[in-house]
């Protein structure tokens, strides 16, 4: 089972939930950080990274001696990554999406594959939990190609070991966020009961609903803000899987790199119960109403 931990708004506690769930998960697990622009899960799980390698995207290299400047490549390219000016071919590596179209279309076979570094993929262990992460290179604009490679590595691990996966997704609701949750079996949306949290939660709900996957909500920092998220979830029949109460001690613990599930037996129980509800949600069984109801 792959569980994606997502949120519309950043900073609502996605990584807190992913790290705490990883801590209490009963079955063999791989914890995955797909928030490749701002990966933070390793800061809390503190894995020993045993393997790290660069991830690449294919980009064109033009052999001008074979080129007859026919423009087929620049006509095809939708990303302005290759352009023919008279008898000079310019490539803009950082604009290239790696579709391979220019290489395939060139009648002179003048274009061969080169590559651009997207970032790093790291693999390691935190206790019994396997750990996998992507880290986007500074200056690289495109996160989805790196995320695709991390996901393909995850698929290999799952096929080889049968482990469950907990995936820390990037915030937001655009292409990278949807890309992250697309292959999961269950989506857990983490939010906070503030106007920003509620607004972005609705966006995320709208973005992820068409995927047709079971979805549940974790309300972090319960007790701050207002009650709008609760009435919305009740009205839309969105199950609230848990509430993590706001406590300054938890915020301080997090600030010092502690995993919230480790702070007290009460916090631990919240995440143990969350993990059970995720299993129920995945099994399609009726989720027990959260304690507030």
């Amino acid at each position, binding site marked *: 089972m792959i569980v994606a931990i997502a949120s519309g708004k950043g900073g609502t506690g996605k990584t807190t939930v992913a790290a705490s769930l990883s801590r209490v998960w009963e079955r063999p697990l791989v914890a995955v950080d797909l928030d490749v622009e701002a990966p933070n899960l390793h800061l809390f799980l503190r894995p020993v990274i045993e393997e790290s390698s660069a991830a690449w995207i294919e980009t064109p290299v033009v052999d001008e001696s074979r080129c007859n400047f026919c423009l087929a490549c620049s006509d095809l390219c939708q990303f302005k990554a290759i352009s023919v000016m008279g008898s000079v071919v310019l490539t803009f590596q950082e604009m290239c999406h790696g579709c391979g179209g220019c290489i395939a279309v060139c009648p002179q076979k003048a274009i061969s594959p080169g590559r651009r570094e997207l970032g790093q993929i790291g693999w390691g262990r935190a206790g019994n939990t396997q750990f996998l992460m992507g880290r986007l290179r500074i200056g690289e604009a495109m996160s989805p190609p790196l995320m695709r490679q991390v996901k393909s590595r995850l698929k290999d691990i799952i096929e080889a070991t049968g482990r469950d996966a907990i995936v820390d997704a990037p915030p937001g609701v655009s292409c990278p966020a949807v890309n992250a949750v697309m292959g999961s079996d269950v989506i857990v949306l983490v939010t906070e009961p503030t106007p920003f949290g509620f607004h972005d939660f609705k966006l995320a709900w709208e973005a992820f609903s068409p995927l047709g996957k079971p979805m549940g909500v974790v309300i972090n920092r319960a007790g701050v803000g207002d009650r709008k998220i609760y009435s919305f979830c009740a009205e839309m029949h969105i199950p609230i899987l848990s509430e993590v109460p706001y406590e300054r001690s938890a915020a301080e613990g997090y600030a*010092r790199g502690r995993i919230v599930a480790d702070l007290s037996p009460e916090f631990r129980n919240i995440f143990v119960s969350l993990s059970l509800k995720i299993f129920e949600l995945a099994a399609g069984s009726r989720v027990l109403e959260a304690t507030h109801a």
Partner: protein
Amino acid sequence: MREVVVISGKGGTGKTSLTGAFAHLASNKIVCDLDVDAPDLHLLLRPQAGRTEEFFSGHVAQIDNRQCTGCGLCASMCRYDAVRVDGNTYSIDPLRCEGCRVCVAFCPAGAVLFPEKHCGHWHISSTRFGRLVHARLFPGEANSGRLVSVLKQQARQLAKSEGKELILSDGAPGIGCPVISSLSGADLAVAVTEPTPSGRHDLERVAELCGHFRIRLGVIINKFDLNPEGADGIEEFCRSKGHEVIARLAHDQIVTKAMVAGLVVTELPETDFTREVRKTWARIEELAARGKKS
């Protein structure tokens, strides 16, 4: 004219709440919400509907099943795993389609259509703090970087035609495409961070990004009292890299209170916290007046 962009790397550090307060304090400016993916500034600024435009960007492939012969060439050439096969029926998953046109160009039956993609809307609205340029990308859409560029162009035109001296922008979290796009042409980037492992880690990444694009960076350490030693560590980091620490602000529930009321924090009765926010903005104005990094 000066351009100040507030960014954060990590989400939830207080970027938008502070930008809202700065929008209140700054005079003669255009405000711009560049977090087009999950925009929140309008919740504080409560804009009156003004001009709305549709945003089109790129294309998406569509298979015309009356023309398709089921040869499967598109599926074998697609690098994005966007071609779905159900028996002998081929279709494109629009969420995976990158809009690269390879399937369109190579389909021997000419069966792939390539309509333009309607990705969202952008607006120029009025608020109690002046004009707001903002947008909403439809859920799941890519190309937020291009929408960010459109907003910046609009804000610049507006600032020019109305004689405004400042564009104040709320940037996106992260370090990818929309953030890079937000930073282009900025006189000053202000990073809002917090003394948590994530806040520190992501600050280091946005700082490196600003260095990469030669953008001057100032740092606000928000919620410093959650971990004062961590805040000292961030100050140390900033000193070593030559980034000014503009302010240390305490973790104050007044920020959430203001948000629930649909106000910015400096509109509430004055407290120590709001006084600090005013000082912070005054310092940002001084820094921005120095202009771009040489």
